[in-house]
Structures are given as structure tokens and as C-alpha cells.
């Protein structure tokens, strides 16, 4: 009935509004069968919404979905699954306390008792493992598996339910470069077996590496379609933001001065006595950016907490401008002394999402005399300050009275950066400055960080984005399992850094 040329998926005139936000505007998209199709766009460009509509999580206000040429109605995820569509979400949809088998079977039990389905799943996992080099212990508890394997369970889940088309939403965010390569090999094999893969990402490199075709979205619309082989990174980036972007941050060589931060043998153990930060030592000097690279969860967050005074180290010392601050545990004192902190978790620690922007913009500085004396908070001064900072950091919309939650990720980050940078700190600690931030804002934030460095300030940067670490840092420290694996020059190639991030040192490799 359908010949091989019929597209796997066609989206025709998809339109979706959330209140005032027009998330998808008349989107048309055709995805060829047996191909890997990339969808790229900035945050808020509507890619995730579009895929959620395809997977039945939301329903479109207007438009038509065709699967293998036939118009279908997808009202829920079960409809999508019935039409052979599977999705691997950015945040895994797994039950941590279940075994791999139970997770795979959930929703596809095939009868009132789960015994037969578990046996069937065990068999089919064995086949899938052989076919796609996706070995997973079927009886392992999912919560105890590393993220790379958890993702594999997600893919297996979809395949077990008979997915012909697999949607992956930002699949590499949590993976090491090696794990990402393995994932891409698996996706390649899936395509070779005739499956269709839709890859949502904001990483241009991945699009170039693996996709056959790519669709670029901007502000809810499809702005361009390319054959991957006939395009390049620059062209894609331009399509994404609608203008030329500097992909590489231009910066002069650093002029490091005296030591501002000196971390000596810092160890931090969690309640179970496991050293999450293990004998870490390094320094940061004036006028340089030191980047800490590593896969997330390798002790970077805990290290930031120690340095910013949020937690006390179990042992070791931290010197800030010559003073031992390690055991002080007084973040407010540190901020007054010129240690500014842009926390990793913007939504929870960076600002209070239910506060208006002006209030979020003074968090941690509310005691300042200029914002009111004694018990009084001078509302006008607070709003004025925020207005000024918003203009300076190009926050959009520039409305200090808007709730913090209403700003996009990039603009929230700008509010926080403005708050910290405007106080003229001597040392800026910044965690994941561009996580969930769109390209335009990334460029802006990177420029500001470089400018701050050129003013002679010290910056400690923690990021899981290796590209970001490489383009901003003057020195790179790689952390793995709480330990410093080594220090490298920013020019060091990605493979070497990737191995360090996976805990493989040059000695092991040799």
C-alpha cells in the first residue's frame, strides 16, 4: 500500500499556542523513512513542543499528522506508540526502583499478569543487544545504572514497543564524548535497519556528525531545511539565530596576575562518607579564566559549594586573597569581600522564580545601604537598579516587575550575571553559565566573561559543555570522581580531554 518512498512522518500546518506564547506557527515538516533527521533551534524555538505534539503529550490547535502517508489522530502517548513512534526524553522517563525488564515492559504488558511479558522482554532484549551492541543487564535496578546505560534502557523501551520512528530530545547532554559516540553508532545502526530517527539538539556539531537532513526552527517556525552534507556549521548557526554568530570567542592571551583563589587539598565527604571532592588543589589568578571540565556529577557542584562558602570542606584549606576562608561557612561575608557566585542551578539557587525580576536581582545583596536603611527596603531603588542592569545586560523583556519565572533561560541567566558582575567582584565563580541558554545569549554571556577577565578579574568557570570550557578558559582542569585528573591548555584536543573526563589518564591509555 505504501511504497518505500512515503515519508515516515509528515507534519502539516501544525499550530500550537500556550496562552500568549505562539509555540508552533504553521509548521510543516517531512521526515524521510530510514533517515536521521536533525531538528535544531535555540531554546524556545518550539522543537520540543513540536515533538511533544507528535508524541501525543500535547495536542495541536491546528494541523495534521501523517504517519507513512496516512492521516492519524494522536491524542495521547499511547496513540503515538500504537503508530510506531517512540521517544527518548531529555529527562529520562524511567522508574528508578524498577529493574530494566520492568521498565521495558511498563505499558506493554500484553495481559493482566506480567510474567509472560517479562519473559518475552528478556528474550527480545537479548536480540536487541546483539543487533545494536546495546548490552544491558535485564535484572539491574535502573536507578543504579550510569546515565549512559539508563538512556540505552529508554531506547530499548521504545524498540520493545515496536517503535519505527525514534525521537531523541537532547540526548547527549548527560553523556561523555565517548558515550555520545557510542550512542551515535547505535543510531546509525538503527537507521541502517530501516528505522527513522529524529534528533533534537542545539549542538551543531552533532547535527553535522550524524544527521542526513536537518530542519532549523526559530521562534516557533521552520526557517530552513538542509541536506546535512550540503551545509556547514556557520550556515546552520546563522539560520538558527537569524544573523551571523561568532562561534569562537575572540580573546587576547591572558595576563595573569597575583593569585586570588588558592584551593589546597580540599576534600568533601557526603553523609555516607564518600569523598565527592577528593584532595583537590588549584589556584586562580587575576586576569585569567580557569575552567573546570567534567561530566556532570563528578564533584564539580560540591567543589563550588565549598569555595562559595555554602558548605565547609571535610578537610583542606581555601584561601581567598590570602585569607583562609575554608571553614568560615559564611557566603554573605565572602560576597561582601568580593567573591561573587553564579550558581549552577539557576532556577533553584540563582533566583526565586516567583519573585519579580527586581527582587531576584538583589538576592544576596539586599542588605546594601543603597537599597534602604535598617529594616526598610527602598522599592524604588530596587526597581531602578534592576532597570539599569537590564539595560546594561540586554535583558528582554526589560521589565523589572515581571516575574522571574517568565523570562527565558538566557534572560534569567543575564539577570543573575548582572547582579553578580555589577558588584565588581574580585573573583567570579560561575557554574554552567549557558545551560539551557540560547545561542544569542551564549555569545553575549561569553563576551561579558571575557571582558571581566580583561579587567583583571579572576574567574572560575565550571561547565559540562566542553566547547565552552575550551573556548573561554585560559587553563583547563579536568575532574573525574571528585579528583583532579589533570590540567591542560585550552588548545588540547577534545579526545584527550574526553578521556580525562572519563577517568582515563595518559598512563592508563598507554
Amino acid at each position, binding site marked *: 500500500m505504501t511504497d518505500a518512498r512515503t515519508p515516515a512522518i509528515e507534519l502539516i500546518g501544525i499550530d500550537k499556542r500556550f496562552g500568549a506564547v505562539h509555540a508552533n506557527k504553521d509548521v510543516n515538516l517531512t521526515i524521510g523513512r530510514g533517515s536521521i533527521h536533525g531538528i535544531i533551534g535555540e531554546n524556545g524555538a518550539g522543537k520540543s513542543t513540536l515533538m511533544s505534539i507528535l508524541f501525543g503529550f500535547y495536542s495541536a490547535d491546528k494541523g495534521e499528522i501523517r504517519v507513512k502517508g496516512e492521516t492519524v489522530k494522536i491524542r495521547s502517548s499511547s496513540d503515538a506508540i500504537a503508530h510506531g513512534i517512540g521517544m527518548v526524553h531529555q*529527562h529520562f522517563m524511567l*522508574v528508578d526502583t524498577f529493574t530494566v525488564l520492568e521498565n521495558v515492559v*511498563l505499558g506493554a504488558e500484553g495481559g*493482566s499478569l506480567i510474567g509472560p511479558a517479562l519473559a518475552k522482554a528478556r528474550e527480545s532484549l537479548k536480540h536487541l543487544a546483539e543487533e545494536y551492541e546495546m548490552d544491558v543487564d535485564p535484572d539491574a535496578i535502573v536507578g543504579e545504572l550510569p546515565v549512559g546505560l539508563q538512556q540505552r534502557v529508554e531506547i530499548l523501551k521504545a524498540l520493545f514497543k515496536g517503535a519505527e520512528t525514534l525521537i531523541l530530545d537532547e540526548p547527549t547532554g548527560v553523556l561523555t564524548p565517548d558515550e555520545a559516540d557510542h550512542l551515535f553508532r547505535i543510531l546509525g545502526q538503527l537507521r541502517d535497519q530501516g528505522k527513522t530517527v529524529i534528533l533534537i539538539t542545539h549542538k551543531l556539531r552533532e547535527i553535522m556528525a550524524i544527521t542526513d537532513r536537518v530542519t532549523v526552527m526559530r521562534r516557533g517556525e521552520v526557517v530552513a531545511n538542509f541536506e546535512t552534507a550540503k551545509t556547514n556549521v556557520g550556515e546552520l548557526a546563522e539560520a538558527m539565530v537569524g544573523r551571523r554568530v561568532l562561534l569562537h570567542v575572540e580573546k587576547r592571551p591572558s595576563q595573569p596576575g597575583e593569585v586570588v583563589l588558592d584551593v589546597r587539598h580540599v576534600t568533601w565527604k557526603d553523609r555516607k562518607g564518600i569523598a565527592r571532592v577528593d584532595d583537590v588543589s588549584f589556584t586562580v589568578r587575576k586576569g585569567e579564566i580557569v575552567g573546570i571540565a567534567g561530566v556532570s556529577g563528578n564533584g564539580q557542584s560540591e567543589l563550588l559549594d565549598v569555595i562559595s562558602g555554602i558548605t565547609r570542606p571535610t578537610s583542606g584549606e581555601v584561601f581567598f586573597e590570602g585569607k583562609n576562608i575554608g571553614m568560615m561557612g559564611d557566603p554573605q561575608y565572602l560576597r561582601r569581600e568580593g567573591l561573587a557566585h553564579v550558581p549552577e542551578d539557576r532556577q533553584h539557587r540563582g533566583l526565586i522564580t516567583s519573585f519579580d525580576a527586581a527582587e531576584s536581582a538583589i538576592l544576596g545583596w539586599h542588605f546594601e545601604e543603597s537599597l534602604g536603611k535598617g529594616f526598610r527596603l527602598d522599592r524604588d531603588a530596587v526597581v531602578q537598579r534592576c532597570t539599569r542592569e537590564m539595560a546594561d545586560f540586554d535583558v528582554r523583556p526589560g521589565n523589572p516587575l515581571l516575574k522571574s519565572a517568565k523570562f527565558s533561560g538566557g534572560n534569567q541567566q543575564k539577570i543573575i550575571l548582572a547582579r553578580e558582575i555589577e558588584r565588581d567582584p574580585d573573583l567570579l565563580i560561575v557554574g554552567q553559565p549557558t545551560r539551557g541558554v540560547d545561542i544569542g545569549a551564549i555569545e553575549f554571556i561569553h563576551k561579558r566573561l571575557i571582558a571581566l577577565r580583561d579587567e583583571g578579574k579572576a574567574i572560575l568557570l565550571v561547565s559540562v559543555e566542553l566547547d565552552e570550557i575550551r573556548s573561554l578558559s585560559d587553563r583547563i582542569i579536568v575532574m573525574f570522581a571528585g579528583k583532579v585528573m589533570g590540567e591542560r591548555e585550552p588548545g588540547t584536543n577534545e579526545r584527550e580531554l574526553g578521556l580525562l573526563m572519563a577517568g582515563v589518564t595518559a598512563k592508563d591509555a598507554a
Partner: protein
Amino acid sequence: MLELFFGAETLASTVRLSVPLILACLAGLWSERSGIVDIGLEGKMLIAAFAAASTAAFSGNALLALLIAIMVSLGFSLVHGYASINQRGNQVVSGVAINMLAAGLAVVLGNEWFREGGRTPALSSDARFMPIDIPGISSLYDVPLIGVLARIISGHSLLTYIAVALVPVTAWALSRTRFGLRLRAVGENPHAVDTAGISVARLRYQAVIIAGVLCGIAGTYISTSLSASFVRDMTAGRGFMALAALIFANWRAWPALWACLLFGYLQAMGTRLQGVKFGTFEIPVQFINMLPYVMTVVLLAGFIGKSVPPRASGIPYTKDR
């Protein structure tokens, strides 16, 4: 002394007092395994006890009393379900509201209907769930040891046997059936259930309904089997003790049975030790009555190792993260 602590009478009384705990604990288990925290076990049992005693007083029919009690308890359960599933309200607040409503409503209606200060009239044995003697078992009563066992097993009401049978049924249903798998999943990660194409709300309503039915049976047992009328606040914190047993049992069915039997035993001892003297020293009754609660606090304070609630329990489900 041995007879006092481990005699057939003490143990049989343990079983009798454990029954409402077991039923309520299983009700809590079903509800919380699906992610709905149920503080309202106490209130549902109480209103069911009142409904059962009133129906029995009016009709003289124990089975009808059970049916009505289940329906009333179910009604309260669905209110809790609506508040926590559809309206995404705070489940603890909703549960507390149900407890207060039940306590007040039972007394007000009782006073209006029977004019006995909130009590219901004493029930005749036809209107109650009376002990059933297993045929022929009395011949075993005089055999050593087996006789004790026989006397513990026999002579309970139908509801007791139902309660005990529900333990293996619950354990089996949770671990072996599709419904059990989905229910456990929805209590751990409702997002996973939703993306697997299963309705989160429907599963949770099913769990809440089961909890309502079980509390209905528990309440009926309290007012028509354990006693012969309804008295205000007669559940006496059993719903909360069941919650403690649930935590103690780490949200699993078999351990829940043992925990409830332990609490039931302590309650039985409380009654048995009244007026008993150790030498010249008489243990105050209040002290014995306190034991189950002290046990709960001590055990929960760290003597039972890790007790991990279902991860999503108490958190209303919304699609957006």
C-alpha cells in the same frame, strides 16, 4: 506469666485487635504506592464505623451495614482523590480535613438519629459480624500447642479472615499483575507512566478506591465485630498507627502484616495487664496503652534501618516539569 504473655487468649485478642490495623495499613499501602498520601485513614474508618453501626441499628442486617459502610468510606475516599488528583491539592491537608469532617459528622448525625450523645444503640448479635467457629476444630482445643493454635485461628468473624487473606492478595497483585506494576510505577515516577501511554489519574483513582473499600471494611469491623455499637472517636488513632506500621513495613504487604500484629499484640497486652501486679508493683494501664506509640517513635527514629517511601508520594502530577 507465660500464659499471660503468650497464652491463647492473649494471642487471639492480638489477632482481633490487629484486624483494623491490617485493613487500614493495606489501604494506606495501595494509596501511597500509587503516590497518594493518605492521612485520612482514621477518618474514613471512623465514618465507616458510624455508617455500619447506624445501618445495623436501623436494619439489623450486618451485610447491609458492611455495604453501606464501604460506600460511605468510598465517598470520602473519592473526595480525597478529587482534591489530590484533579485539583492537585495538598494531600496532607485534604486528609486532615477528612479526619475532622468524619469525627464531627459522625457525632452530629449520631446525636440527631439516636439521641444518645453520639453513640449508636447496642447491636443485637444478628446485626453484628459474630465469631465463626471452624467446624470440628473445638475437638483440638485440648491438644497441647496445637490447641493454642486452633484457638487462635478459630472463632473470628468473617471480616478477620478477609483481612488476613487480603495480605497475600495484595502482595501478589502488586508484584505479579499489570495493575500492580503500573501502580508501583505511578507512585515512583508518574511521568514514566504517562509517557508509556497510561493514564496517571485513572490509576490513582483506582488506588484511592481500593483504599476506600478497605477502610470501609475496617470501620465495619470496629463497630460491629470488635464492639457492638459506635462510640465517638472509637477508632482511637488506629489510622495513624496503621500509617506508622506502613512506614515500619517499608510499604510492603507481608511486613505490614507483621507490623500490625506487633502493634495489635501491644494493644492486647495493654488490656491484659490491667490490674496485674508484679510483686507489689502494679503497672499503670496508661503506660501499657502508650507502648504501641512509643514503639512507633522508637522504631521510626532509626531502629528499622532505611525506610524509603514511594518517590512521587504526596506530589501532585502535572505534565510540565
